[in-house]
């Protein structure tokens, strides 16, 4: 009879297999519709809100990119809301014509800043764009068609990485493309669980109904997406609409960003815990919340088991070395890898192959990348090492949540 840890491993494998098979099945069924976006003739009045805090380096570039977007000029207004910047953001923005600049004069966080902008907006649709992101020319038109469906509450776009000079940028570039690809797949089952701040559009009427962005949540883009789903609207993903952004270029900044994402994720799960497996909330209750929750639980549990096993091995190895040295024996070698095939060899191979298939299709479909995907080594590094950092950040996030030391 298998022991407890073996059963836990097998459960992990079952859940992982199910996730990857589900994603691939959805993908293969809808492969031809990934880029089936049409350009609508119904140009709704659009208010673009750019919340800015200490963005002197990028604000001009972002505003100009928005001004250059191909959308009827009489149907678009650009609202820049300064969140109490201490640098030259306001000064730079003031020098740009054709925008409505609001200076709050105090720093209250992104959610509050966007909510401020929403109150000032006149458009039927609200686009929120980070002050360091640049939408491509045709992105608004492509996204707008999704609002022809009255059930659509929000639409988001493909975000790609601009600063890919460093390895960390290259890795995030792969990650961002795969995230966008994965989000599009989830779109086919009405389960887009985040509308990123780099570029997302919302129906203003809906935002007014649900009270805008939650100012207590540090990942307002996850929280708002969940709120929309809970209110029985859909979040959609427009794969062909693209926006570029700068990502953290040092491990320290990267860690901080991921910490924020995870802590915000936990906050959101906690807020919507009552929706867990709630049939009346359809995909949100039956899939989005449980999937998010289970993946976090599995990730943390998996990390603890992994740490326990590695720690145990290292401790054992240390003791072996100590006793060997003390008693004049030949120093015992490092714990050997047991290469005798076993039940897990098959599963690890299957999971790796299907993850490769997902990655291959993901990168192939997103091949407009500025990075170029011949760098197979980077992809392999991404799969084998970069992804293993996730549970570590998750664990740190859990610590932050438990200690209540949440500040950004």
């Amino acid at each position, binding site marked *: *009879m*298998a*022991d407890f840890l*073996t059963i836990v491993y*097998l459960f992990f*494998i*079952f859940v992982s*297999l*199910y996730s990857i*098979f*589900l994603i691939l*099945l*959805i993908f293969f*069924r809808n492969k031809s519709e990934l880029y089936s976006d049409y350009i609508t003739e119904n140009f709704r009045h659009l208010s673009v809100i750019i919340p800015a805090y200490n963005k002197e380096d990028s604000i001009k570039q972002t505003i100009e990119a928005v001004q250059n977007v191909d959308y009827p000029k009489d149907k678009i207004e650009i609202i820049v809301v300064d969140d109490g910047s201490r640098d030259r953001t306001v000064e730079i923005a003031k020098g740009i014509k054709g925008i409505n600049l609001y200076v709050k004069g105090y720093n209250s966080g992104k959610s509050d800043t966007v909510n401020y902008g929403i109150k000032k907006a006149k458009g039927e649709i609200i686009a929120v764009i980070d002050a360091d992101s640049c939408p491509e020319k045709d992105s608004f038109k492509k996204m707008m068609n999704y609002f022809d469906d009255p059930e659509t509450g929000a639409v988001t776009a493909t975000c790609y990485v601009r600063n890919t000079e460093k390895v960390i940028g290259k890795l995030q570039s792969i990650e961002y493309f795969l995230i966008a690809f994965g989000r599009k797949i989830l779109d*086919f*089952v009405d389960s887009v669980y985040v509308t990123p701040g780099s570029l997302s559009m919302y129906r203003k009427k809906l935002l007014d109904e649900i009270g805008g962005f939650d100012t207590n949540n540090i990942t307002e883009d996850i929280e708002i997406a969940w709120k929309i789903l809970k209110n029985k609207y859909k979040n959609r993903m427009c794969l062909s609409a693209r926006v570029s952004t700068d990502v953290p270029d040092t491990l320290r900044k990267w860690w901080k960003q991921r910490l924020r994402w995870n802590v915000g994720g936990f906050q959101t799960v906690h807020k919507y815990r009552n929706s867990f497996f709630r049939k009346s909330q*359809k*995909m949100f209750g*039956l*899939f989005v919340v449980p999937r998010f929750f289970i993946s976090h639980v599995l990730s943390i549990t998996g990390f603890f088991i992994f740490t326990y096993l590695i720690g*145990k091995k290292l*401790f*054992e190895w240390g*003791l*072996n070395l*100590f*006793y*060997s040295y*003390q*008693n*004049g*024996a*030949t120093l*015992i070698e490092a714990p050997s890898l*047991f290469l*005798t*095939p*076993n*039940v*897990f060899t*098959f*599963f690890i191979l*299957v999971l790796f192959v299907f993850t490769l298939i997902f990655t291959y299709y993901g990168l192939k479909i997103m091949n407009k990348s500025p990075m170029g995907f011949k760098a197979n080594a980077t992809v392999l590094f991404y799969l084998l090492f970069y992804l293993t950092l996730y549970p570590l950040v998750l664990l740190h996030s859990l610590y932050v949540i438990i200690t209540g030391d949440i500040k950004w």
Partner: protein
Amino acid sequence: MVRYGDLFLKALILTIVVFLLGVFLGYALERNRVNDIEEQFQIIDLNWDDARLQSLYYQNLEPRFCDSAIEENLDFADKAYQEGLKIEEYEQANFLTNDLELEKRKYALLKVEFWLNSIVLRNKCDADYINLVYFFKNKPDLETEAKQNTQSEILKELKEKYGKKLMLIPLPIDGDISMINIMETTYNISIVPTILINEKRKLEGLQSLDELDLLISYE
């Protein structure tokens, strides 16, 4: 969920199929390894019967062939030792079945038999080899395991040094084998690792290479 409910179901079916296939393959692999050990055991058991009978024959009827009996005994010891290592390796890779436990017990019994034969052979043939019985646990705590690993390494080095002069007989005391339990009581084995040299000298706890080397050279 109604529109795409079939995808969730299909993914579940696919997962169950692949999962069961994997478990079945894993089980088949493990069974195959157990079968391999069982086959080897049968061969070794047969060899052992042969060696034991030869031993009896030489001891009782043809004492001048004692050397051959000792040689047979040593050959058998080597084979049993190698097979023991194989069981250990397979044990690390078997997650679904416990069938190797039984094989381990069979081997332990065989080693006890081998030990008893070695005692008789040494007395009857006036052989000068040393019986070194090493008592250990199959499921020790971390610290004991480290001590056992070190002790095994030291014994392996001594075996290499003394070759056929040293009969190395490792016996697990937690294998629920009544014969070993009797030995345990007879020699009052309370901790592991414990080493018994020529059924006379008992050494409790981890013994250093120099200490053991000195003791063996005096025997």
